[in-house]
């Protein structure tokens, strides 16, 4: 393996010379070895494994760099934190997901995209007396922080089938039936504080409760369905689902794009084209 002498921390090379990266005293959370085509490099790092059999160690490069044994040439982990009750060490610049893997914390399977869009890696964080929630893949390891990976969300309590909605005039009434709690917001800001995306959740719910579904849906545009606001709401409003309802209703009833509709009509007539009726319609087709 030509690969790694990889270890932590790699100094952030962008720090010195540039305006890059003001915050991150970056270290290599994962150091990748990128095969360079040419220079005889193509296969060596992966070649020992014959492709079958169990030489798993040789298959993956990233995991190796995450293993303790590859980390200790002079650079010790520099952050001490607690994950799911276990005291673990990590390196500055690691996300909490990487820190959990690095330390081998068991039962951390609530991880998905690792770029903050799937909403799976919900964590509760405690710094001293300050308790917050967030996404583990978007939070960096820091000294003394206590982290608990939260269990998956429970099944939703509000039920509807968008196929049942026939008339947009009825929607506001339907909404009140489906989400009766939405108009009982007590403005505690729990949802706003919980949202890892900085969505103005409370305002979004108020807009929906006032029947302004397009605006409400727009407020939830960055929602990743982590449902942390649902957890935070003492009135059980389920804001994330209110937001998604608002977005879905807006598209379902109001998105009627002419270019798409025209093409659908062309295709419909083409399908009928086998029948003699459409003989003069070919002129209209592109």
């Amino acid at each position, binding site marked *: 393996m030509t690969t790694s002498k990889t270890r932590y921390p*790699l100094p952030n090379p962008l720090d010195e010379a540039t305006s890059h990266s003001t915050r991150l005293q970056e270290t290599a959370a994962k150091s990748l070895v990128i095969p360079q085509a*040419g220079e005889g490099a193509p296969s060596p790092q992966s070649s020992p494994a014959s492709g079958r059999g169990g030489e798993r160690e040789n298959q993956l490069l990233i995991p190796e760099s995450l293993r303790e044994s590859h980390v200790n040439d002079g650079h010790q982990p520099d952050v001490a934190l607690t994950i799911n009750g276990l005291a673990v060490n990590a390196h500055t610049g690691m996300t909490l997901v990487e820190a959990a893997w690095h330390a081998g914390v068991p039962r951390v399977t609530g991880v998905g995209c690792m770029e903050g869009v799937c909403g799976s890696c919900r964590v509760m964080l405690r710094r001293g007396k300050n308790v917050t929630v967030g996404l583990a893949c978007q939070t960096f390891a820091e000294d003394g922080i206590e982290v608990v990976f939260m269990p998956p969300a429970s099944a939703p309590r509000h039920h509807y089938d968008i196929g049942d909605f026939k008339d947009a005039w009825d929607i506001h009434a339907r909404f009140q039936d489906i989400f009766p709690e939405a108009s009982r917001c007590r403005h505690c800001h729990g949802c706003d504080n919980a949202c890892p995306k900085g969505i103005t959740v409370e305002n979004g719910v108020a807009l929906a409760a006032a029947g302004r579904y397009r605006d409400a849906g727009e407020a939830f545009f960055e929602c990743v369905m982590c449902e942390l606001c649902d957890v935070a709401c003492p009135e059980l409003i389920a804001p994330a689902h209110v937001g998604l309802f608002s977005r879905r209703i807006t598209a379902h009833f109001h998105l009627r794009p002419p270019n798409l509709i*025209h093409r659908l009509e062309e295709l419909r007539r083409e399908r009928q084209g086998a029948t003699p009726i459409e003989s003069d319609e070919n002129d209209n087709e592109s």
Partner: protein
Amino acid sequence: MSNGIPLAEALARYRPDADLGSLPELADTDTLLNTYHPDHLRGSVIKLAVGANAGESCQRELAGLLQAEAFIDEADLAGTPVTDIDVLVIGGGGAGCAAALAAAEKGARVLLATKLRLGDSNTVMAEGGIQAAIEPDDSVQRHIQDTLRGGHHAGDPALVSAMAGDGPEVLRWLIRQGMQFEQTPSGDLHTRRAGGMSTARLVHCRDYTGLEMMRVLREAVIQHRSIEVWEQSPAVELLSNEHGQKCVGAVLTSLLDNQLRIVRTRSVILATGGLGRLHLNGFPTSNHLGATGDGLVLAYRIGARLRELDSFQYHPTGLLHPTHLSGKLVTEGVRAAGALLVNGLGHRFIDELLPRDIVCSAILRECSEGRGIRIDDQRVGVWLDTPRLERAQPGLLEKQFPNLMTRTRVSGIDPRTEPLLVHPTLHYQNGGAVIDTNGATTVPGLYAVGEVAGGIHGRNRIMGNALLEIISFGRRAGIAATANRDRGPKKVTLEHVNRLRRALTLAGMPMTQRAPQILPDYAAGGVWNR
């Protein structure tokens, strides 16, 4: 081996308003691909020894998994609880949800089992958009031609034309489910032209197209009365009838309690996605945690034919920095909007909107010939010139690419003033299970849809066809799977596993490795252990 231009020097040379010079002539595409594309790395491809594709080429690490030992045998099935259902969907991404919804719409009782959480998938990360021929100057025929050409004519024309023909109807179905798209002031769906397209055909929801699609489908599945969802339930094996010839169910495990469960069914739809997390050839990946190629392993073991097992897509613009996002994508939409690729000398080197494999090869060429930007001994990349784009179209990045802006903001990087360092990243499995236009594999009772299926993208997928494929074929398979109205399986066995074991023994292959992989090794702190 580090060659390339040191970062400080490259930065000193970089100016967002510099004259980039003229684009060099691209002499010979084939030579470029053959020399630099990772699929052609020496030693990365071997011949399969057993199974339906014996004698054919396959990427080496994948071959190891396809020809591996199973985790369970008959003894493990005794006393295992059994669930009977009409249709089993394995995989909770876009393809799985579309298949489950289509089957449920046809009146079937559906069980959707997914390894992680419903919606944990590559779908949710898709940023660019979905292709559909809806503009007046466009046609389904052109869409078919672009797709086949982009795939180097290795795709199956019947599958491609089925998918392209579904395009407009897929958009309509998605809107009916409640998915929003970007509109022009006059209310048309906004389209962009991206790599490999002959005209503007990419419909999108800013740069959150996949997220918007996934959260809508996820909600639709959760709300549906006849779909049951099992999360944290990866499949470890399929089940066959007593002759090992037909797929009649699957064995699932649970990441929560490690308990095996048997699901007996008439049809199984594999929608397990790709294999980026195998880190083929040592590349970083854009894929989500669960993308370990399990579906290919299960399908191959039960006898399904696969195709293009030596062809993978490396997305040209994976982030090189910051490290915790390494391998994650900068959407091709940014290039479609006008961002250029610039090497360490401050020169353009390739038409940014050529097909992905060519752009990827060109970046690797720049890096290996010393014109890349070197961060350290191992990391070399090229600039994605976002500041120039911002100068040309102020406000565009903030407005159209909020996802990119949010992600980089966490790391203190501002693409409006600083160019991004990018390098190709393992992105997509071009091939997969051989299917027909109903998504049916060569094994009766087994369907495959989405990234696990092959034949549509040939040897290179063009942008926006993945999101179209998962809905188009997801729905086709969901509908076809409900057509089977027989009385269900009499007997569920592991006959196909025994068959593969015999073949491995005859071929003198070791059976030390077990598959499917379920989770990457570095995430094995989960309960999954072998």
